[in-house]
């Protein structure tokens, strides 16, 4: 019994300690960002790895999610004779929810795990300590550019996801199912608000980008420097990111659309 309580206590302390270290890392990253503006090429390079290479998976998934939404939504709406509202259904679900959330989940799987593995491997091969020996701060040189790149690319990827998804739904709805294209777009425009819906979706995706990159970089930076440790950190990145995205999504939705 005592052992169990002690285990619980150790786990609690460990979690707290990791949270503290993660926050310290975040503070270090953020204080490093102004300096990073002087050497923006570092960020551009990371934008390539984090952003550009994620475009394909985002576009393909967005297209298919939109097409499925179009098909499913049509089947439900046609019962009420309201299939013209397909545009509204698709645009609101994509812009408010699916765009930010699904692209963040994909981003965590595609870019977050890569970031953790990369930084973790740098740590285990002692490249990070090597940098410190040369009086180069690894947080500013390695971590901060990746962080900024993640935060910048996430909203862009989410916007692409939503845009392509709406196009996919339009293709299915208009091309396959014969929904009137004028009604599709005009109802969508009438019911989707720039501030309420689209900007809130963008804010969501920025928050997700922030959290996912933070988790990924911290897991890499804090990884046990063995091949097993790096592997475990990579898994943790994906799992924790998914939890954080879905949990935060609820909180943000309640704040933004709950009233």
């Amino acid at each position: 019994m005592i052992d169990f309580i002690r285990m619980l206590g150790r786990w609690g302390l460990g979690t707290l300690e990791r949270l503290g270290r993660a926050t310290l890392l975040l503070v270090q990253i953020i204080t490093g960002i102004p300096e990073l503006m002087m050497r923006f090429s570092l960020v551009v390079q990371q934008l390539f790895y984090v952003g550009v290479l994620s475009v394909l998976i985002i576009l393909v998934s967005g297209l298919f999610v939109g097409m499925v939404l179009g098909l499913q939504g049509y089947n439900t709406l046609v019962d009420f004779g309201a299939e013209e509202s397909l545009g509204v259904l698709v645009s609101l679900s994509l812009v408010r929810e699916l765009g930010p959330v699904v692209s963040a989940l994909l981003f965590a799987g595609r870019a977050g795990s890569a970031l953790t593995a990369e930084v973790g491997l740098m740590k285990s091969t002692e490249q990070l300590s090597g940098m410190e020996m040369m009086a180069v701060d690894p947080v500013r040189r390695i971590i901060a550019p990746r962080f900024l790149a993640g935060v910048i690319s996430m909203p862009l990827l989410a916007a692409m996801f939503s845009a392509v998804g709406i196009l996919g739904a339009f293709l299915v709805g208009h091309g396959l199912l014969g929904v009137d294209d004028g009604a599709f777009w005009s109802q969508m425009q009438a019911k989707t608000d720039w501030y309420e819906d689209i900007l809130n979706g963008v804010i969501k995706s920025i928050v997700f980008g922030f959290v996912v990159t933070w988790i990924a970089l911290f897991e890499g930076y804090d990884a046990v420097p063995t091949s097993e440790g790096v592997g475990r950190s990579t898994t943790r990145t994906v799992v924790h990111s998914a939890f954080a995205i879905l949990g935060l999504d609820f909180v943000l939705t309640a704040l933004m659309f709950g009233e």
Partner: protein
Amino acid sequence: MMQSKQTEILVGLFVAAGLAALFMLAMKVSNLGDFTDEKGYQVTASFQNIGGLKPRSQVSMAGVRVGRVADIKLDPETYDAVVTLNIYPEYDNIPLDTSASIFTAGLLGEQYIGLQAGADDFYLGDGDEITLTQPAVVLEQIIGQFLYSKAEGE
């Protein structure tokens, strides 16, 4: 060097594509596209009941959109809803005795204001008031009245 140039170009394309997607969402998907043409002149109309009318609802004449609802207030004395309509500048020849009613698009659709042109020789200008108004039809009231009259007949 060549490598980094290519990277920069791809990143540039990436950022441009992301911004283009956002732009498309703004212009094509949301109502921001027609938010820019907020020019026009303002006309008020008071209604007994506006139902589900909201700011930015359509104002149409013969089915053509001629403006939008700019503002809705409650008159503190008459307890009527005072609706400010923003009419687009190209429709500057709406007669003074035009009447305004609140309609519903379809059975469950949005509510909008429909204008029926009058025959006056003078036209509505900025700050004028439409005096002939018809309140929104509230479905529950009609059903209630129908049931009431039915019960009375028996």
